């Protein structure tokens, strides 16, 4: 069975999603999806170990050998991203087991879990596949299920948010499709390794250029790179709380993975950064994202929107790391992928607990909440510190690599800007921390600490931000060898 794991990684959640439709009972479908997500995590862990021990795994479907058939190709990079997706889903799905509350629409629980599992399988599929067209298919599976998930939010604005996301997402997805088509025209293959081998022959061609443009813009929309981020704040704010946590921690991460794949595997860093000088575009955009995202976050009154804008700025860090095209920079970007998943997942879970307790996301309603829900809010503070990049948290590690990368290139102003932008994070985090802890509660309502089934998943992620802030061998270590591998060095 071991050699079938790559297929199972995707097939397991995919078919479990269908089974959820058959089960229909809300508790049963919930427990079932939790079990499935844990199974996915186990598979992902085994795959990472296998890749580390034996190198690249190649799996082909239906007896068609690559490059003709569809190939699942797992190297360090996707194994690493698989872990992120599987881990977050394994933590988010059990969140609040035993409580039905507000985050899951009543009467449609099984549909919720079905969409959730579909989304997981889509994300895992994008990550694992070695076939360019397959990326598109899984991308659409992810997108469709996430539109549905977002639309399940309680506020009617969730519907509009989902619709906007749908329009933007479809345009993005279609752009990716065009890009893939162009590459197919130029190389006659859809297998990524094959494309990568053949593209250098066509570097002069305009088709390749256009293909790259379409792919980047398409992925950029999905990734919410500044100025293509329009859909993200509303989608995250109005989605059901656990969905925000899951999407914030995984969806953009997987899009980032696709971008890295496109740039470093398909087109090759030398072509993108030396011939096209892509960083000339990407670095200013990343910096703008960092500053504008954070600045807008400062003025939000809805805490989920605040975190959503913070996500936009954090995505700026990731793309910045990528655009250095150096080992340290890419390590920084990739490690931030993991780190940001941990902290944003944790923070959104905190908000889900808060939502459960006070049924509001407005910062004003959370006055003095630190005293009523000390453990939950302490988790928020720690997650916030991590966003700021305080040493001892994961945020520091990412920032460290980015600054080192900037200095290494001699781009001192960028190093300074990276640090300054973390100061903006201090402002938007501390503004709400003050309100949580140093304001008197509005009215004496009986607000209780969140139940254990919510606290444990939250603290797993938040604890992770602390643990991996000190023990970086599994995050920065792996990210470092991925960066080495992508930039052509030895893994």
């Amino acid at each position, binding site marked *: 069975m071991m050699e079938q794991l790559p297929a199972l990684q995707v097939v397991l959640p995919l078919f479990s999603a269908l089974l959820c439709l058959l089960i229909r009972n809300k508790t049963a479908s919930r427990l079932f999806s939790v079990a499935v997500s844990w199974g996915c995590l186990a598979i992902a862990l085994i795959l990472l170990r296998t890749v580390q021990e034996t190198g690249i795994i190649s799996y082909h479907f239906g007896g068609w050998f690559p490059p003709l058939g569809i190939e699942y190709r797992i190297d360090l990079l996707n194994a690493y991203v698989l872990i992120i997706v599987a881990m977050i889903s394994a933590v988010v799905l059990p969140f609040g087991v035993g409580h039905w509350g507000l985050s899951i629409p009543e009467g449609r629980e099984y549909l919720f879990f079905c969409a959730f599992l579909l989304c997981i399988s889509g994300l895992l599929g994008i990550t694992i596949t070695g076939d360019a067209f397959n990326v598109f298919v899984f991308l659409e599976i992810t997108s469709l299920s996430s539109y549905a998930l977002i639309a399940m939010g309680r506020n*009617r*604005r969730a519907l509009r948010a989902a619709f906007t996301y*749908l329009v933007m997402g479809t345009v993005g997805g279609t752009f990716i499709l065009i890009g893939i088509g162009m590459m197919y025209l130029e190389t006659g293959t859809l297998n990524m390794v094959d494309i990568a081998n053949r593209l250098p022959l066509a570097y002069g061609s305009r088709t390749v250029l256009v293909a790259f443009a379409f792919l980047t813009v398409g992925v950029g929309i999905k990734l919410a790179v500044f100025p293509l981020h329009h859909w993200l704040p509303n989608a995250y704010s109005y989605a059901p709380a656990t969905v925000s946590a899951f999407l914030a921690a995984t969806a953009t991460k997987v899009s980032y993975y696709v971008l890295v794949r496109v740039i470093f595997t398909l087109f090759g860093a030398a072509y993108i950064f030396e011939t096209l000088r892509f960083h000339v575009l990407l670095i200013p955009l990343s910096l703008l994202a960092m500053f504008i995202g954070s600045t807008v976050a400062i003025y939000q009154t809805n805490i989920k929107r605040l975190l959503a804008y913070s996500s936009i700025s954090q995505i700026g860090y990731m793309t910045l790391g990528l655009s250095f095209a150096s080992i340290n920079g890419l390590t920084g970007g990739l490690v931030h992928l993991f780190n940001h998943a941990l902290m944003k997942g944790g923070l959104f879970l905190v908000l889900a607990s808060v939502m459960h307790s006070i049924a509001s996301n407005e910062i004003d309603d959370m006055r003095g909440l630190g005293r009523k829900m000390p453990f939950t809010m302490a988790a928020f503070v720690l997650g916030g510190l991590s966003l700021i990049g305080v040493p001892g948290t994961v945020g520091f590690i990412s920032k460290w690599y980015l600054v080192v990368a900037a200095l290494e290139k001699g781009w001192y102003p960028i190093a300074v800007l990276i640090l300054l932008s973390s100061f903006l994070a201090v402002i938007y985090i501390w503004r709400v921390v003050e309100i949580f802890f140093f304001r008197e509660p509005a009215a004496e309502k009986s607000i209780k600490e969140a139940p254990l089934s919510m606290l444990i998943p939250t603290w797993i992620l938040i604890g992770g931000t602390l643990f991996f802030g000190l023990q970086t061998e599994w995050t920065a270590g792996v990210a470092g060898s991925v960066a080495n591998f992508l930039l052509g060095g030895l893994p």
Partner: protein
Amino acid sequence: MQWLGLWHYWAVIILMMIGLYIVIARDNLVKKVMGLSIFQVSVIMFYVSTGKVEGGTAPIIPEGGHDLVYSNPLPHVLMLTAIVVGISTTALALALIVRIQEAYGTVEDDELNAIDGAAL
């Protein structure tokens, strides 16, 4: 006149722009979805047209005929999936529009904005 030789690209691009324009410029959500569909169809046309080989036939091997030129079937197969994706997207979009209509009583974007307030 080389640029005219690739006339199917022109068709694709014009369709695509029409679609995008509708998505951007129309306020009615249903029309937006229509634009989106046109946009997607343009890409499907693009793929299908690239699979065409001069004088090629459907890639089904008749008995005895080995020297025939076939069109490239792969883009067609891919588009099968893309069509399904398109249908799903449209269906989902329409479902959302129905629910927006129920929740807001309108499907015009500017009216929706007015209802939700400028704070969006």
